[in-house]
């Protein structure tokens, strides 16, 4: 069965995401570090089933504590897995840092710009189309607690493909 890793910075809503996708009921809380081990679940996609793994939050792939070590090890063990990188849209820069690290390691990634409502409340404007064209991977705005954007995330799984970081850098340079 195709595996999906749910990755992202701490406290961005990965577990809420996991519960919504799988119908499970893992503990969610509003502080970082709730998930220090991983949880597995299953989801029906539009054509096939997926195994989903809720990975502890990490800022980067250079682990600096136990939870991050679990995250990095999971990624390394699951070669061939798809990654849904959940990022806090209101803290987009550090989220994208992790996205690029995962892309760099050759995993196909779908970016979920979660907490879209929080970013809107902060009057942040994010050009999704531009971000998509720079990264060349699916980017979907989501609100995990209400379920907004989930259908699109699931549908975009099949569009996720490995992308070279060099091409991304070139596209960024073109904008500058």
């Amino acid at each position, binding site marked *: 069965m195709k595996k999906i890793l749910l990755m992202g*910075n701490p406290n961005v809503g990965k577990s809420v995401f996991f519960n919504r996708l799988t119908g499970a009921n893992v503990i969610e809380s509003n502080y970082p570090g709730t998930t220090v081990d991983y949880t597995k679940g299953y989801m029906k996609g539009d054509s096939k089933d997926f195994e989903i793994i809720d990975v502890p939050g*990490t*800022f*980067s792939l*250079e682990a*600096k504590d136990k939870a991050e070590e679990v995250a990095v090890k999971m990624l390394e063990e699951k070669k061939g897995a798809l990654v849904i990188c959940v990022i*806090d849209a*209101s*803290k987009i*820069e*550090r989220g994208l*840092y*992790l996205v690029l*690290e995962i892309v760099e390691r050759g995993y196909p990634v779908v970016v979920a710009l979660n907490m879209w409502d929080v970013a809107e409340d*902060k009057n*942040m404007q994010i050009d999704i189309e531009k971000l998509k064209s720079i990264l060349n991977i699916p980017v979907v705005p989501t609100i995990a607690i209400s379920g907004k954007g989930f259908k699109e995330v699931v549908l975009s799984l099949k569009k996720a493909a490995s992308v070279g970081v060099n091409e991304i850098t070139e596209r960024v340079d073109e904008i500058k």
Partner: protein
Amino acid sequence: MEKKLSEMNYEEEGRVVSIEQDLKNKLAGMGIRIGKNLKMITKHPLKGPIVVEVDGAHTSLALSIADKIVVEVKK
């Protein structure tokens, strides 16, 4: 004026001018890089962690890490 991030006062703002080499990648994942503007939000007592604002988001750092970041403080 330049000082260590750990020495900043409440509400003080500054721009990062240097970060100890082996911490650079670790901090980049938390949105802290050279050139970024930071604002001191909280310093916990008893050598506890500090909280800074970067790009509108709060990030906490161990005091020992904040010791290794130098900022140019705004007047």
